């Protein structure tokens, strides 16, 4: 009996490794979850007689800085993946560290933004701007995104430690990168729909 044919993992239908394919499956399901949240937010906005003026509620300079930091961290993450493909592990460590710093800065700024809004009287069920669903959807969606950023930071920290100790692989860095870019991608939608439209 040929045992090798029994235990050898089959090739994925997408021609990518199983790790990467499963991360893509996770990203699709998570993207559909955010789609549900954003569709609900769209419904709430359409069905509301009035909506607070975003320029009066948010500090757009802070939001622009948050966006800059997250886009930059995505670029450093992509560079970490490229370095891993070239087996340049010293550069992997540098780029992963920069990505971690970017993620931490983003999370810090989000906490600052939340604390400002809470200080002004915003809660999940009421706010000074007269539309309770405004802050309910804001805290829910940005909070859910923030929890993804936090998860991404933990994944990146583990990947960075594994890289530093020589236990990480190119595939490990690539899969961590896919997750981090997904977090950036979701922010593009939140940035547009919450802060600009």
């Amino acid at each position, binding site marked *: 009996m040929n045992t090798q044919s029994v235990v050898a993992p089959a090739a994925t*239908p997408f021609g990518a490794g199983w790790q990467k394919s499963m991360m893509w499956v996770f*990203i699709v399901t998570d993207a*559909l979850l955010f*789609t549900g949240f954003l569709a609900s937010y769209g419904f709430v906005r359409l069905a509301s007689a009035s909506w607070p003026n975003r320029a009066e509620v948010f500090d757009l300079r802070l939001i622009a800085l948050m966006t800059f930091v997250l*886009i930059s961290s995505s670029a450093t993450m*992509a560079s970490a993946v490229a370095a891993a493909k070239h087996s340049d592990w010293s550069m992997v460590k540098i780029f992963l560290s920069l990505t971690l710093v970017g993620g931490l800065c983003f999370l810090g700024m989000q906490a600052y933004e939340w604390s400002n809004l809470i200080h002004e009287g915003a809660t999940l069920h009421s706010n000074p701007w007269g539309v309770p669903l405004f802050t309910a959807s804001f805290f829910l969606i940005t909070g859910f995104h923030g929890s993804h950023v936090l998860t991404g930071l933990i994944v990146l920290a583990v990947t960075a430690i594994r890289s530093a100790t020589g236990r990480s692989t190119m595939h490990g860095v690539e899969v961590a990168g*896919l997750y981090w870019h997904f977090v950036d991608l979701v922010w593009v939608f939140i940035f547009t729909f919450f802060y*600009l439209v």
Partner: protein
Amino acid sequence: MSETDSKASYKGYWITWGIMLVITAIMLLGDSLSWSKPAIVGLLLVAMLVKVALIGGEFMHLRFEKPALIWAVAGCILFFSAFLFILIAFDGLRIARMLEP
């Protein structure tokens, strides 16, 4: 892999980063344009989709994957998003019309 190849691959990501920053700046300046609201929203949506395509295609390397994976990922998300938004939009607009004075 030579050092030149390595630098060339980093360069591509930083060019994408620069393009995304320019698009973000355009989005932030959208309000200062003397355009109608639907035109500004249209500009924002197009800019948003370009950024999404850049992240998915360049940073996530989706454009280098097999067409089966591209369709499974992008097709699934786009189809269900459009389905959900269109279904909800009709009801939302109906309620908005009811709320009109």
